[in-house]
């Protein structure tokens, strides 16, 4: 076989793979798909020859890499089911919930015992809001929309920071949770001390479950990511971290969706003066819906392989 033939075949493979990469494999005819497969096999075998000139080897490399990306692309159906991530993160979720609510309870008790502490723990803006007469009443749809955009950005950043900090060694994720829990507990303590605890509850009730739930989930994912390379089992640390990332990705996406859902509730519904039963029913409804969705995901994939 002359090298001119090699060069031409490599160029044909490259252009065929490029077209499939651009338009999708389904756009190629049956004969073209078969040709792509057979030419890829030929190219891999041909590249083993050391006699090939540089230009042909370079072309073969590029063609093989491009065709490999087309022929062995993972389909979306090969993604790890949500149930695998949920099972993996179950215990860590309990741990991060305990850290969040534990530090919240400690901060609340501390502020109730010594109200001056609130000046050290709670930002002045929040204290001013607690003391204000029109807490949460923003007065216009535009301002509610503006705050929704703000919450999207701020809460996604906080949740993702908890998640990604966990990669360092797990603990930083829990520290972010403890800090946020402490802040919420101190705010709750200040509000109760000033006699406006019911207004705080009315504010948190519509969006608290998805927003705090997402933060707790992200902390749990971060903790698991950190543990994955600290205790890699029989895998290499790098592979264990990548596996954890792949398995926990669907849970991270659920957390992102929860934050996205919580922001408009915080922007539009939280400032409303809802009847007391709505402030009780909305969080319960959130817990029931999220619990049922989790049960459904686990039921659909009983014993899904990790």
């Amino acid at each position, binding site marked *: 076989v002359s090298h001119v033939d090699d060069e031409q075949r490599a160029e044909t493979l490259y252009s065929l793979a490029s077209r499939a990469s651009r338009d999708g494999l389904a756009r190629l005819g049956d004969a073209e798909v078969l040709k792509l497969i057979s030419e890829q096999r030929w190219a891999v075998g041909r590249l083993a020859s050391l006699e090939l000139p540089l230009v042909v080897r370079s072309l073969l490399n590029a063609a093989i890499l491009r065709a490999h990306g087309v022929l062995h692309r*993972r389909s979306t159906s090969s993604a790890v089911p949500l149930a695998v991530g949920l099972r993996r993160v179950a215990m860590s979720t309990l741990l991060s919930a305990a850290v969040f609510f534990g530090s919240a309870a400690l901060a609340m008790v501390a502020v109730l015992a010594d109200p001056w502490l609130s000046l050290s723990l709670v930002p002045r803006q929040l204290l001013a809001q607690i003391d204000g007469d029109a807490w949460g009443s923003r007065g216009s749809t535009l301002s509610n929309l503006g705050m929704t955009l703000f919450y999207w950005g701020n809460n996604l950043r906080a949740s993702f920071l908890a998640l990604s900090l966990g990669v360092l060694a797990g603990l930083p994720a829990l520290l972010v949770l403890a800090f946020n829990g402490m802040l919420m507990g101190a705010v709750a303590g200040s509000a109760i001390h000033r006699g406006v605890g019911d207004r705080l509850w009315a504010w948190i009730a519509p969006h608290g479950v998805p927003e705090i739930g997402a933060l707790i989930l992200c902390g749990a994912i971060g903790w698991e990511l950190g543990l994955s390379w600290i205790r890699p089992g029989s895998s290499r640390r790098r592979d264990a971290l990548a596996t954890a*990332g*792949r398995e926990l990705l669907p849970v991270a996406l659920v957390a992102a969706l929860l934050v996205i859902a919580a922001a408009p509730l915080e922007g539009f519904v939280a400032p409303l003066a809802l009847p007391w039963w709505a402030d009780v029913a909305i969080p319960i409804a959130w817990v029931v819906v999220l619990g049922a969705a989790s049960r459904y995901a686990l039921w659909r994939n009983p014993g899904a392989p990790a």
Partner: protein
Amino acid sequence: VHLDLPEHGQLQLPLAGMGRRGVAALVDLALLAFFGLFVVVAAAVLAGSTGMADLVGPGAIGLTFLLPVGGPLLFELVQSGQTPGKRMLDLRVISADGTPASAGQLFLRNVVRLVDFLPFGYFVGLVATFSSKRTQRLGDLVAATLVIREDAQALVELGLTSHTKVSQELHGIPEAVLRGARLLLDPMRDIEQVARHQRESEVAALVRRYRPDLVAESDEAIWTRLRRALGQPA
């Protein structure tokens, strides 16, 4: 770094070095900073001229919070693993198995960017990249992605340094056929003689189908090749 191909070969990937990745990151950061500044200034002007300060003020702040993760993610999703900086320097994010990175992988690597950036100037990311053989920052490690070069020079370097280490005996034969051959070669398997002979003929026929250059060879000759290539005694 080598990529194991299902066609029984190994291909070298042209990994992007620290320099190129650093310059690409600087270009992206400059663009994001410019865009963030533009958003804030535009928001201030809009708020003053339209009386919509309640909307554009917090909205602009929220948007700038999202920029460090959302900006690169959006570009990498739309441009198949390339941000403007990466495109300028002929770099691309791909999956560690050589296939295009999935949307989920791009999402993960950009979320973890928040930590790679800490405490400032990609310090954590730099440490991770320096200590990784495959120049992966933390986000790449979690998402199992690589950043490769796609420039002409990289191809020439690949041509100079790499060739697939494919076994000439095995190339082109699908893994399923080889798995069957391995089963038949397994000395621990007790297979009845007639059945074994029949299975060996079937495997040899399959090998001929995928390797036209072996059509003329007998079953015995093909099995001699298989034993040699699969490391089994004759």
